[in-house]
């Protein structure tokens, strides 16, 4: 039975020793050790978080790059398209203008030809008229070289003229 009978001395010394041990270890061992472990764990957590953040940023950056590349590609595409359109337009415009110019020139030429033609015709008419008058003068002079025929003509004309 003595085995389960706590001795007073050992109870006393155990209590004192344990309390002192607890106090000393808490101050000089558990605090620094747990603090260091805690700090390190916090550090690791922070490092992981910042790595994750960096990865996220990297991802964002890559996405940005991709986006910019995409945009650049689209822009180039659109620029090319614009250029092509402009080229086509310019060609079309030029064609139109040339057409217009040409038709204008043709028109002018036609007008000039027409007026030249008219002038030529007028001159020809004048010339023909002068010739005709000359011929007529010569014919008339020849016709009316005698008195009889003059009188006859007057007579005829008078007869034709109706007084009204």
């Amino acid at each position, binding site marked *: 039975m003595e085995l389960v009978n706590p001795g007073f001395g050992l109870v006393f010394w155990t209590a004192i020793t344990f309390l002192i041990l607890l106090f000393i270890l808490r101050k000089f061992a*558990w605090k620094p050790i747990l603090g260091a*472990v805690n700090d390190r764990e916090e550090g690791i957590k922070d490092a992981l978080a910042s790595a994750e953040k960096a990865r996220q940023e990297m991802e964002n950056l890559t996405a940005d790059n991709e986006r910019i590349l995409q945009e650049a590609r689209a822009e180039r595409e659109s620029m090319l398209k614009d250029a092509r359109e402009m080229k086509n337009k310019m060609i079309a415009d030029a064609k139109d203008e040339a057409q217009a110019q040409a038709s204008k020139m043709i028109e002018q030429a036609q007008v000039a030809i027409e007026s030249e033609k008219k002038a030529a015709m007028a001159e020809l008419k004048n010339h023909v008229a002068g010739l005709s008058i000359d011929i007529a003068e010569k014919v008339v002079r020849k016709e009316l070289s005698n008195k009889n025929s003059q009188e006859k003509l007057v007579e005829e004309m008078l007869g034709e003229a109706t007084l009204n």
Partner: protein
Amino acid sequence: MFVNSYNVRTFAPNLKQGIFNPVRMRINTLKNIILSALFIAVFNVSFASDSKGGDGEEKFNPNEMIMHHVKDAHEFHIIDWNKKPISLPLPIILWTDNGLTTFMSSGFHHDDSGKEVVEKNGGKFVKFHEKIYQLNDGETVAVFNDKHELTNAVKPLDFSITRNVFMMWVSVMVLLFIFFSAARSYKKSKNNVPSGIGSFVEPLVVFVRDEIARPMIGEHKYKRYMPYLLTVFFFIWINNIFGLIPILNGANLSGNIAFTMVLALFTFIITTLSGNKNYWQHIFWMPGVPVPMKIFLMPIEIIGMFTKPISLMIRLFANITAGHIIILALMSLIFIFKSVAIAPVSVAFSLFITVIEIVVTAIQAYIFTILSALYFGMATEEAH
């Protein structure tokens, strides 16, 4: 409910607990069988040799030898050399009617039968079965009655530095050395990475924190109890280990009920002091049950408050003491049979038990700590 959970455990052997429990149970069963067999043998033989008596040969009493090793002592006996004991004398500190009386245990000249009388500070002292008695005034020798009890002496208050107290202080020195070196190794490194002994200690400290304190007490409150849990864990563990070292004569500190009682008492005090409203409500007026049940449960819960630390006390004491007794009993077989032929068997068996005991040193420290943490967790649990 209980049956169900038991079935689940037995039919799911890959569960952690499912493996752990049967193994421990098997070890315990084995231990019990060996223990009881040996006890029967030991008692029979000792009775037999008692009845024979005085045949000239010095008779071996295993019961006495084992009890002597398991119990506390006033001197640090190391070895018998040429039938002369070699031992370290330890101071004896007594509180008598004449005040504090101190002398060295060597004054008794290794006598434990009450024959040697030491006179000191006006008192006469004898040592009988590792207890110090003060003879009554006027007496010069110890007188025993038929039952081997001292009739003419009283027991003064004994504050002696016994074998166990001495080993406890040695263990404290070792603990301080280990953890001061560990703490220093953190201070030396720039990025809080331990080196040397610190890298050995850290996983253990982190184990106590992550496997014991955090799950049992909870994330928010565990920090307050960490110093106590860590100190208890390592204090018990190192004293369990010291108890297994043969040259230290197996000082059985953690198998002494005084030691386990003090630690259990501290757990009880901390639990009681940190009990919150919810904890006391669950003891005195259990919520969620009808009133007659509340009244019925109250005394049970009040008894439960005390049985928890008492179970802590007895568990540690009984496990460690049982281990010591088994090893010593196996060794006693050699002397009981008086044959060298039995020695290999004894050595093999005690080696086997010693290896198990090495595991038990850690397991018992762990169990004491985790149950303390569990009680703190129950005391601080919030109503849900």
